[in-house]
């Protein structure tokens, strides 16, 4: 259940921002989650519901924006889109692809009051 740890860390980030920027209520949380990130969005949403309860972000709407995965194909010497770490290069079909982005798990911004 590492989504639970992530949810708790996310709340910690939000509360830290609340202390620093002086807001008391969070209405919306906007997250960017990469296609290759080690997180299950549904599980994270479920954990957040529990973790945010009783906090300044209780009932906040959580929006997930997907960030596509990208890799560098050694054979093609080119950036290619990839859907999974074990996926072949969509150009040459080979597996010499180093994943370069799509690991994001970021809190982008918050709608607060």
């Amino acid at each position: 259940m590492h989504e639970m740890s992530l949810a708790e860390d996310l709340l910690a980030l939000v509360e830290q921002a609340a202390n620093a920027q002086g807001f008391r209520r969070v209405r919306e949380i906007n997250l960017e989650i990469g296609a290759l990130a080690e997180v299950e969005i549904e599980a994270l949403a479920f954990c957040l519901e529990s973790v945010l309860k009783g906090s300044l972000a209780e009932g906040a709407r959580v929006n997930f924006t997907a960030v596509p995965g990208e890799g560098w194909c050694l054979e093609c010497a080119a950036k290619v889109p990839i859907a999974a770490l074990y996926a072949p290069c969509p150009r040459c079909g080979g597996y010499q692809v180093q994943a370069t982005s799509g690991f994001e798990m970021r809190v982008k911004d918050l709608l607060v009051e």
Partner: protein
Amino acid sequence: MCNVCGCGHGETRIEGELPAEGAHEHPHEHLHDHTHAHECLHRHADGTLHSHPPAGDHLHYGLGPAHAHAPGLSQARMVSIEQDILARNNAYAAANRRWLTEHGVLALNLVSSPGSGKTTLLVKTIKALRGRVPLAVIEGDQQTNLDAERIRTTGVRAIQVNTGKGCHLDAHMVGHALERLDLAENGLLLIENVGNLVCPAGFDLGEAHKVVILSVTEGEDKPLKYPEMFHAADLMLINKIDLLPYVAFDVERCIEYAQRVNPRLEILRVSATTDEGIEDWIDWIEARLARARAAREDTVDALKRRIAELEARLAAKG
């Protein structure tokens, strides 16, 4: 929660000590800077303050009450955050890595499924390196201190961290374990993570390398089934190769799958029972120990140069 630094999740247990009872005395030193952001966050449901258990070799993170978060009070605006959800863990990991680098310690994070033979391999590794390299072990398990006890029979210092309901070690737990370990300079720290091929992949502990262990009694398709872990690792040990004649495990296919996920992955075949391949594994470690020492020398030399520069400037002014 520690009421001085605010660290701790309220669920810590150190081997042989009572959890969350009895105030501990400050000052205690931390390898990492606590942000204090979580100081006000993790309040115990019953209103008590958690304190760190006194020094010992067993950390337990699964015994305390559930975290309760105080509600805030109440014109809508957008606030930019732009921070990684794992920022907190990553900050602790960076502090651990800095400390390890400064002390020339090579830290390896050993990850695998339960039952891959990690602890047996660890004991074998310790026996091969004991006396030549200062060694210490951090043992992660959900419960019990059985593995740390097994390691201690080799005479090497081991600290058990119980994650309770947690599925992985995190950098904060490892930071506190490091404080208790009293690691020698230029040594080797072996961290045996919780047996789990999923969650430990995402949590940087500050280690130099993740080493994934896959035994031939498991499926050769595990690198495809649990790609994150094989992607995060720098070395894969295929363990229990003495059992190859008795199991339907295709080593070549396993390697192919693993390198699909991670083309840079190094691979060694070993048997912790018959010692086959152990020498290659020890060589791999020793090469990296040499690098860790060289990196520390660089740091020490760089500091000495800086001191000499500052002294020269001071002398010029005086």
